[in-house]
């Protein structure tokens, strides 16, 4: 909101420079964003930003009041005593019917006759409105705007001759009732909307905007001026439902000062009488009563000191309250009884006064201390600890951490299998991104796409974030921290020592195996398991102690196509809570073998359909305690290997904890393993 400093000077002395006052206001919580001279240099405008708890600052009087408080100077309202010429004449048969006192506790109006609409607004009024960014329109409207900006009370003037039946009704709208607002918007109303109506129809949406049919024009001679108190909630709901807001609704929904109803109306009537010279002004028509109720709050200085950590002297507290316009009495030495004026509806509890005391005393004056508490060691959450370790592991291996949006489009996802129990967002910012992701790969495919587009040859990313779904039979969403890992393009880029190599499924699998091993999860098993978005066969799940801890595979060509990706993409997802529960942080030492190991190779030619993992498993079980390690070190096809066959070369490492093994010790064992493997897999030896 724009505040004219010339206008403020009506109410309070402004000791220059104005920038200093602006800064003091800011440091008291009334933020002055800008201090700027008007183009004609006659005025200086404060651009203020208020917090929702302080609607009383939405007027020049309110800002002047705050300046008086922070500057500890007097507030004067020069026109407060110069009341409008009070008329006792009834309003020629006009009546107000207040049908809904819950939404509008207090409604007042004045009927005025014989105004001269050709009279221009006085210069000061035009200048001040312009300085505040309000375009002067016609004198009546200008006066209602002026009073709004001055006192914070929204007013509305109807062309009385266009109202039917000399009746003002404050009532609920009829279902489907129509009205055209002053801004031209066609409104279709509902009973939840409160309207001002004449005998026939709605003529204003209460507290929000008047209707076009009864608006003030150049032909207006007689007016009905409204000043009322509408409850914030109703105004807010209607304003939001209809999508219509105004300076008036902005104030009503934040709550106006109930006492401003009379004050604002009197000020307006007085200005109209002064500048529009009406022939007749009616007595005030009133319905309901002002909801202003006295509020008393007790605050003890002990409480103040205990919460703020500073002792403020009683006379300083008294001064703060007085400056804020609060009447306070000290009950004994310790307790303050404070009476809150109607414009400060935000003050209802002791803590509100405590804040006021701190604010006006000055936050800067409150010392900085450190809490006195015995030292304690904060707990460490196992999952968060694992997350840190995991980041270090993957980043150290050359993976970049990605942060992508949790909201995704359905691109590449199966509407049934992937999105069937996914969480949808009703009001997404971007209509495409409406799913809370059930997996991390869509975000990561976007990252692959982004980096491919500028020619990155080696794309390795991970993201540590939540995945979401609604579990079968449940109502509420379930979310789980996960890690998504993606690899595409080269595993190794060419350099002058090494040739380049494409990334493969087995690179990703090996990375996961090492990761699991260093987390103490070497016993994890990889088992075939299909996923709708992974190439099958070839997708696997990771099992730890009977629980699924993740999966891996190659993104299916259909999904790649949906993402316009050409290179193969390998993907794994790990479920952090399962890993965190199983991870072993306290590892137990095993003695390092004292005796040397003996290595023997075993190369077998088997049919393509034979799984290397199965052979490896059988070698292990045949090897017994002396066999420490089985490493597949070579795989080749072609050459002397017949078509449809492959050669697998294993290195078997034998080692004893008790003695040095000699060839003879393992000759028999190794021979037996070779024979049995040959029999089991119809293998031949190369």
């Amino acid at each position: 909101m724009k505040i004219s400093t010339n206008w403020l000077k009506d109410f309070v002395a402004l000791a220059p420079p104005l920038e200093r006052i602006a800064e003091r206001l800011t440091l008291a919580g009334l933020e002055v964003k800008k201090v700027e001279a008007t183009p004609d240099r006659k005025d200086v405008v404060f651009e203020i930003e208020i917090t929702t708890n302080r609607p009383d600052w939405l007027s020049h009087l309110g800002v002047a009041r705050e300046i008086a408080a922070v500057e500890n100077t007097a507030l004067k309202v020069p026109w407060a005593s110069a009341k409008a010429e009070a008329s006792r004449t009834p309003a020629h048969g006009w009546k107000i019917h207040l049908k809904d006192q819950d939404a509008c506790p207090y409604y007042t109006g004045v009927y005025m006759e014989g105004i001269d609409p050709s009279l221009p607004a006085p210069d000061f009024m035009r200048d001040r409105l312009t300085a505040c960014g309000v375009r002067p329109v016609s004198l009546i409207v200008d006066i209602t705007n002026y009073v709004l900006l001055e006192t914070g009370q929204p007013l509305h003037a109807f062309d009385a001759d266009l109202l039917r039946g000399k009746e003002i009704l404050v009532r609920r709208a009829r279902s489907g009732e129509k009205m055209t607002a002053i801004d031209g918007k066609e409104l279709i109303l509902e009973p939840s909307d409160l309207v001002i109506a004449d005998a026939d129809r709605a003529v204003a949406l209460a507290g929000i905007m008047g209707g076009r049919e009864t608006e003030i024009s150049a032909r207006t001679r007689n007016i009905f001026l409204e000043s009322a108190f509408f409850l914030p909630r109703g105004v807010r709901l209607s304003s939001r439902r209809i999508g219509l807001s105004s300076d008036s609704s902005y104030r009503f929904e934040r709550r106006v000062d109930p006492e401003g109803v009379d004050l604002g109306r009197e000020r307006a009537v007085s200005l109209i009488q002064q500048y529009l010279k009406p022939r007749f002004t009616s007595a005030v028509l009133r319905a309901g009563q002002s909801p202003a109720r006295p509020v008393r709050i007790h605050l003890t200085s002990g409480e103040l000191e205990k919460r703020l950590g500073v002792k403020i002297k009683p006379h300083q507290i008294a001064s703060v309250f007085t400056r804020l316009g609060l009447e306070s009495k000290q009950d004994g030495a310790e307790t303050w009884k404070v009476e809150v004026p109607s414009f400060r509806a935000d003050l209802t509890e002791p803590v509100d006064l405590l804040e006021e005391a701190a604010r006006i005393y000055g936050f800067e004056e409150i010392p900085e201390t450190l809490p006195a508490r015995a030292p304690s060691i904060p707990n460490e959450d196992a999952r968060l600890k694992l997350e840190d370790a995991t980041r270090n592991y993957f980043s150290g291996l050359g993976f970049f951490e990605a942060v992508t949006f949790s909201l995704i489009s359905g691109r590449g996802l199966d509407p049934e299998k992937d999105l069937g129990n996914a969480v949808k967002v009703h009001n997404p910012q971007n209509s495409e991104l409406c799913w809370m992701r059930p997996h991390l790969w869509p975000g990561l495919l976007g990252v692959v796409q982004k980096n491919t587009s500028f020619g990155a040859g080696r794309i390795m990313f991970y993201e540590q974030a939540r995945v979401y779904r609604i579990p079968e039979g449940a109502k509420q969403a379930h979310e789980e921290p996960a890690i998504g890992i993606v690899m595409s393009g080269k595993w190794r880029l060419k350099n002058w020592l090494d040739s380049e190599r494409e990334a493969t499924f087995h690179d990703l699998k090996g990375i996961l195996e090492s990761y699991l091993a260093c987390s103490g999860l070497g016993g994890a098993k990889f088992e075939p398991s299909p996923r709708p978005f992974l190439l099958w066969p070839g997708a696997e799940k990771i099992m730890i102690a009977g629980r699924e801890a993740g999966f891996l595979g190659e993104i299916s060509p259909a999904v790649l196509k949906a993402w316009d990706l050409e290179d193969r993409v390998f993907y794994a997802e790990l479920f952090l809570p399962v890993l965190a529960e199983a991870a072993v942080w306290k590892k137990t030492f095993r003695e390092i073998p004292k005796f040397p190991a003996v290595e023997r190779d075993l190369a077998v030619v088997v049919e393509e359909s034979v799984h290397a993992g199965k052979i490896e498993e059988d070698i292990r079980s045949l090897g017994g305690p002396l066999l420490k390690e089985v490493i597949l070190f070579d795989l080749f096809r072609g050459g002397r290997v017949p078509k449809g066959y492959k050669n697998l070369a294993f290195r078997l490492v034998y080692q004893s904890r008790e003695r040095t093994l000699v060839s003879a010790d393992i000759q028999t064992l190794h021979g037996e393993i070779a024979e049995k493997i040959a029999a089991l897999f119809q293998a031949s030896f190369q």
Partner: protein
Amino acid sequence: MEPMVEDLAREARQFLSRVDSSIALEDFRIAYLGKKSKLNGLMEHLKTLQGEERRLFGIAANALKKELEAAFEEKKSSLGTERPVSRPGFDPTLAGVRPSLGRIHPITQTIQEISGIFRRLGFERVDGPEIETEFYNFTALNIPLDHPSRDGFDTFYTSSGQLLRSQTSTVQIRVMQARKPPLRIIAPGRVYRPDAVDASHSFMFHQIEGLMVDESVTFSDLKGILHLFLRELFGADTKIRFRPHFFPFTEPSVEVDIRWAQKGWLEILGAGAVHPNVFKAVGYDPKSVQGFAFGLGVERIAMLRHGIPDIRLFYENDMRFLEQF
């Protein structure tokens, strides 16, 4: 032995022990055996002495001279055997073969740094759900339904009848419900607001929430802790100011600004004393506990610290961006 000679002897032996090349050995020769050497300085000094004193000094100086000459010869021969090995094809100027290192995302780095500071102050790291209920996101935080104070917290609603949290303050409520004071927690995480995306706004971003509750923690403690934190994060001479503000869940509420060269005062975090209604909502007795809470935007701080001009860069994950951090 004469002290002067003794000193020089010690110095020379030390020098020689470090000689590992013929260049260094030549330096040694010039410094200790040459015409303008320190040893010659001793000989000059000898001329100024008389009688017995002169005799003893002379013996010592000559002994040292012999020692150093012998040591020089010995070193020379030992270095002399060091022939440069011929290494044809070895070119040390060939580029080092660099392993490809990944990076931790700058948002995470910022979270880790901030959480790290608070953990050193005894705060426990926690987290909480992102899909939340009205109760945790609004009601318990003293944000009434149909109130303008909700305007700042426009919210995404989900098909599960829930909402996406618009602030990490939800974690305060969950932790307070589950535990008894004293509490010192720090809760980083993602938050969601239906803001139009531009250079400084995103519909998803990260916040860190802090909370401290016990029977006596004061507003002045809040000031002390936050100043300590900001100095640690931004440097010892960081200038800050505390400006009254309004948040429904704290009172008194404060915004903290830091002084940033060229840009003037910049809002860096919001904080305040926990509102009694929040304590009531979690079943604490507001008369017997007090505390403070604060919340800060991670992206904003990361942008400021690293000079990143556009928030969207964080979510694009361009390697050319990420590898800078």
